[in-house]
């Protein structure tokens, strides 16, 4: 199972995790990216994610497919939140199940790195000084 999704509503890790629970798997590695209260020393109050939806979905699916070719994994799912998020909200969830932990760790790490580098989604941070800006690293 491979899937990449974009969600306008809160991500539910418990439900996603359940779908990766397969008898031949000994390992699940999950990554959760949360909205944290600071960025480069500036206090963050909230943020928005904006996606180029069609291209984000196809590029996301491509990443999940590539993960299955590069690593000995069984299941892999990723969900990225879009819209307005508050401090502590879950922005991205990735789960990878595998026979052994090595592949699960490597693939999960690879997937988040590729999502951050390739998927057309942008973040705008709202700082406590009233300024907000799109991050274009």
């Amino acid at each position, binding site marked *: 199972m491979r899937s990449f999704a974009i969600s306008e509503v809160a991500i539910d890790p418990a439900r996603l995790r359940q779908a990766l629970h397969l008898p031949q798997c000994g390992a699940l590695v999950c990554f959760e*990216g949360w909205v944290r209260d600071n960025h480069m020393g500036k206090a963050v109050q909230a943020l928005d*994610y*904006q*996606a*180029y939806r*069609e*291209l*984000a979905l*196809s*590029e996301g699916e491509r990443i999940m497919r590539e993960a299955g070719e590069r690593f000995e994994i069984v299941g892999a799912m990723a969900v*990225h939140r879009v819209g307005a998020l508050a401090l502590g909200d879950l*922005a*991205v969830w990735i789960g990878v199940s595998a026979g052994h932990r090595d592949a699960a760790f490597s693939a999960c790490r690879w997937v*988040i790195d590729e*999502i*951050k*580098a*390739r*998927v*057309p*989604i*942008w*973040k*705008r941070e709202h700082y406590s000084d009233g300024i907000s*800006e*799109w*991050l*274009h*690293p």
Partner: protein
Amino acid sequence: MKVSVHYFAGLRDRAGCNSEEMDLAEGTSLTALYAQCCARHGIDFPRERLRVALDDAFVSWDHGLHDGAQVAFLPPVSGG
């Protein structure tokens, strides 16, 4: 030919719209289109830092344009 140009993130703020229709001379290139968009909206984002998408797929900057094309100029992404 008519094309639609889609803007995201910082470029959307600068353009002041999500997308717009533009009427182009036959044979207009993607780089020439981007230059027109920059001139129209005062965008100064260097083209070298952008990716470009045509009809919901990444393409290279030397890819041709066609009537009805959906074009998006994509600033460096910051998801995750």
